[in-house]
């Protein structure tokens, strides 16, 4: 019994001991509650670095808080994009919700790393679930030599990438130093980091990795070498490609002859052999060789990509086009990408067209797609589907054309009209708010209407308001 309570406890009548216990406990409870003292000398939390950028205007900040509440609209990404564009920051109290959202939505991460200011990195470092933010490109984590010595594979990879980002040669030497003692799975994972700061200087090391015992390591090395401009590897692929694709005797057509077998040198360069190759296997080899040969290889066969692509092909046109598309994507060659899109063939796959679209600069992408969709007849559903691969906000021209194409083609679209309208609602430039509202109004009494269709107008108006709140 505390000293201050002894008088009280003594005064409690000594009748039933159980009751006396309760009465004493009541006195002790109140005594203890009233006498609570604070902890002393508690260490203060680490202070977050001061921000350079201002906070988003209050209206924009509270809009974000509304979007995070229960956001079925997917507009958080757009909000963050607007903040980054205007150089303002998200309200700090919303960062935990944004970091939680970023665990599932990876496309949010690079934007959050910027719109979250210095505070978001300070915060993410305190909670392991948010560690992904430290690995976000552009915010590359500082190299941590201790992690390289003692960390798990993930931390070692982070360190290697960070070193490569600052000094590619130092990163290469770091990896070369431990290469012989790494296990096969480690070699494959760590070799991936060489993509950061990849250059011709890495060729010697990567050529060595082509002779690795582990197939995965050989394949990664081959892929990386194919991306190094002027490497001996791409030279070898160019020679092979020219053996497979020749101009016919009359000079008008292309004759395609896939390799008959995978010899030792082809295997070393990343092709997978087969004991009794099928025609499909052979076309697969062709596609890979063409995909890894420099696109300028073809300059000797035709004056321009379009001329090359317009030539009739004997034996394996789809594989040739797929290989060229892969090359255009890895070599980021917009000339070839545009030529491939312009000469599009029935056999082109949707992912292939989407990848080619991704190579084009935004303005070219918008204008090419607008050109394809404009007209009077029914729009090609395949081309409409490519709208998905054109990130927003679209150009005003493409926006107008897309609205018009859906209006014209609505009868043939079936349920796809809903996903298309959802896309339009999110990517239409807000300057077209009036057109969007007219579009929705027109569908109000239309049998092809539906929630998504009718909401295009209000959604674009909502986004316009969201943008204005940043002013």
């Amino acid at each position, binding site marked *: 019994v505390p000293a201050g309570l002894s008088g009280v406890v003594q005064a409690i009548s000594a009748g039933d001991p159980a*009751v006396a216990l309760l009465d004493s*406990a009541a006195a002790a409870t109140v005594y203890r509650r009233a006498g609570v003292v604070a*902890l002393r000398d508690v260490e203060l939390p680490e*202070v977050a670095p001061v921000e350079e950028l201002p906070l988003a205007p209050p209206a924009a900040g509270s809009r974000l808080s509304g979007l995070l509440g229960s956001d*079925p609209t997917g507009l958080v990404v757009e909000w963050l994009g607007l903040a980054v564009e205007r150089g303002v920051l998200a309200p700090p109290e919303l960062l*935990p919700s944004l970091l939680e959202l970023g665990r599932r939505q990876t496309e949010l991460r690079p934007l959050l790393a910027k719109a979250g200011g210095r505070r978001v990195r300070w*915060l993410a470092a305190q909670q392991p679930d948010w560690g992904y933010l430290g690995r976000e490109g552009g915010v590359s984590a500082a190299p941590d030599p201790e992690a390289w010595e003692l960390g798990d594979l993930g931390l070692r990879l982070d360190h290697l990438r960070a070193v490569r980002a600052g000094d590619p040669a130092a990163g290469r030497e770091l990896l070369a130093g431990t290469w012989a003692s790494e296990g096969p799975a480690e070699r494959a994972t760590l070799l991936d980091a060489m993509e950061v700061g990849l250059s011709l200087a890495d060729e010697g090391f990567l050529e060595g990795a082509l002779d690795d015992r582990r197939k995965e390591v050989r394949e990664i090395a081959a892929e990386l070498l194919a991306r190094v401009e002027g490497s001996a590897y791409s030279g070898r692929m160019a020679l092979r490609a020219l053996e497979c694709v020749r101009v016919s005797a009359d000079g008008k057509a292309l004759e395609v002859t896939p390799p008959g077998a995978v010899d030792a040198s082809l295997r070393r360069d990343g092709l997978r052999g087969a004991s009794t190759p099928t025609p499909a296997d052979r076309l697969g080899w062709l596609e890979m060789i063409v995909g890894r040969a420099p696109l300028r290889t073809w300059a000797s066969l035709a004056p321009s990509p379009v001329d090359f692509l317009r030539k009739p092909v004997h034996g394996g046109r789809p594989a040739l086009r797929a290989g060229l598309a892969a090359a255009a994507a890895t070599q980021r060659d917009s000339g070839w990408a545009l030529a491939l899109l312009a000469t599009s063939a029935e056999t082109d796959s949707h992912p292939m067209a989407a990848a080619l679209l991704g190579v084009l600069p935004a303005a070219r992408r918008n204008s090419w797609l607008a050109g394809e969709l404009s007209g009077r007849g029914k729009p090609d559903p395949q081309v409409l589907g490519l709208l998905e691969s054109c990130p927003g906000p679209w150009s005003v021209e493409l926006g107008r054309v897309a609205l018009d194409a859906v209006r014209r083609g609505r009868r043939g679209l079936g349920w796809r009209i809903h996903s298309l309208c959802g896309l339009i609602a999110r990517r239409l430039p807000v300057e077209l708010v009036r057109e969007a509202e007219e579009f929705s109004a027109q569908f109000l009494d239309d049998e092809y209407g539906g929630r998504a269709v009718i909401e295009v107008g209000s959604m674009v108006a909502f986004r316009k308001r969201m943008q204005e709140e940043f002013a």
Partner: protein
Amino acid sequence: MPDRWSAEQVRALAPDASSRNAAAKLAVPAPWSDTGCTEGSVPVLWGLCAGSGKSPYQTCVDLSEPAYRCSCPSRKFPCKHALALLLLWSGGGVAEGAAPGWVSEWLSSRSQRKERAEARREASGPADARAAERRAAQRADRIAGGLDELDRWLADQVRHGLAAAETAGYQHWDGTAARLVDAQAPGAAAAVKRLGSTVGSGAGWARRLLSELALLRLLTSGYQRLDTLPASLADTVRSRVGLTVPQEQVLSSPPVRDRWLVLGLRDEQEDQLTVRRVWLRGLTSRRPALVLSFAAFNQPLSADLVPGTLVDADLHFYPGSQPLRALAGVRHGAPELLVGGPGGELSAILASAAGDIETELEGYASALAAEPWLEAWPFLLASVSPVCLGSGWHLVQPDGLALPLHPGVAEPWALVAACGGRPGAVAAEWTPRGLRPLTGWPSSERLVLL
């Protein structure tokens, strides 16, 4: 024009997330026409909102309480139209103007209703005083019987040892609670029911259970000696047992007028009921106040006291040795939203209304001396930031003094992020197990609801 509220404050009025989203979509100029607002005798906001029908909905908000009216068929309250109109206004999208006829009609019908209610209250004075007295005496007898039985039951718990309670299950408590309900002592019944959750509340539960049993014994022994207690303490005992004072009687007690800072609110599920607790602190009187409101499950709660606003109003306190629970009476003007940043009065008001950890603990100790059964008490700490120690999260002052957070609250990441390691004002409920943060003002500038 009354001060505009922030969009956050408007959103706090929404009864649920779906109304909040619906309102956000409607908070654009397109569907609205003939909107306006005026200060007048009552600050009011109105507009016509185009819906799916032919004639637009008439939406109108009395900003002083706030009270809402909308001609839409929605049973939600406030409906999405009222919320959207408030959002539009909060964003500066509503111009001042003269109230149209339908708005003034609504306002005058409301003030008439109020007058009639007051007249009724005055008229229902000594109606059948003798019968009421007889009923009260019968109830007092029944309660005394119930509490005597509770007293014996409490002693039995101690005699049999608390270890048995761990495996007893909820029936153990619910049976006793049900008998107290029959004895018309719902307050004591609820306290017995809560014992069940104390058992499962983690390390140290036995000590907490003994404390709660002991405080119940303090209540039964207090009720047995009701006649010898000071009048205000007797009132407290009666209310803890569950004898409620009618609202009219509370409202007829002398008012305490002050500018009340709305510290924050917390909703709690109790059986089929949601209880909203709104904590206030008077700027002049420095008195704490608790305004309770109740709603059936999934029904909207009263949203007339908005955290972070200052309300100039008369409060009428329920009688007791430590008056805390109150009803809002007459309001003297619309709620003021405190403006932070340079030139704003927010930091000055927070500085004068808030205390530090020691002064707030002292205030709690004196309150507990008057009202030993206090479960929660409002703290407004001027300068704290959250920090995670080995023993859990705490709020720490720059001088190194710290108080723990209640183990049942979620990790306070929003507050951590908002503070960035720098101290700010935080309003919280203080309970015997720690703090439950309600509202933060990081760097004493912006408002963050927690």
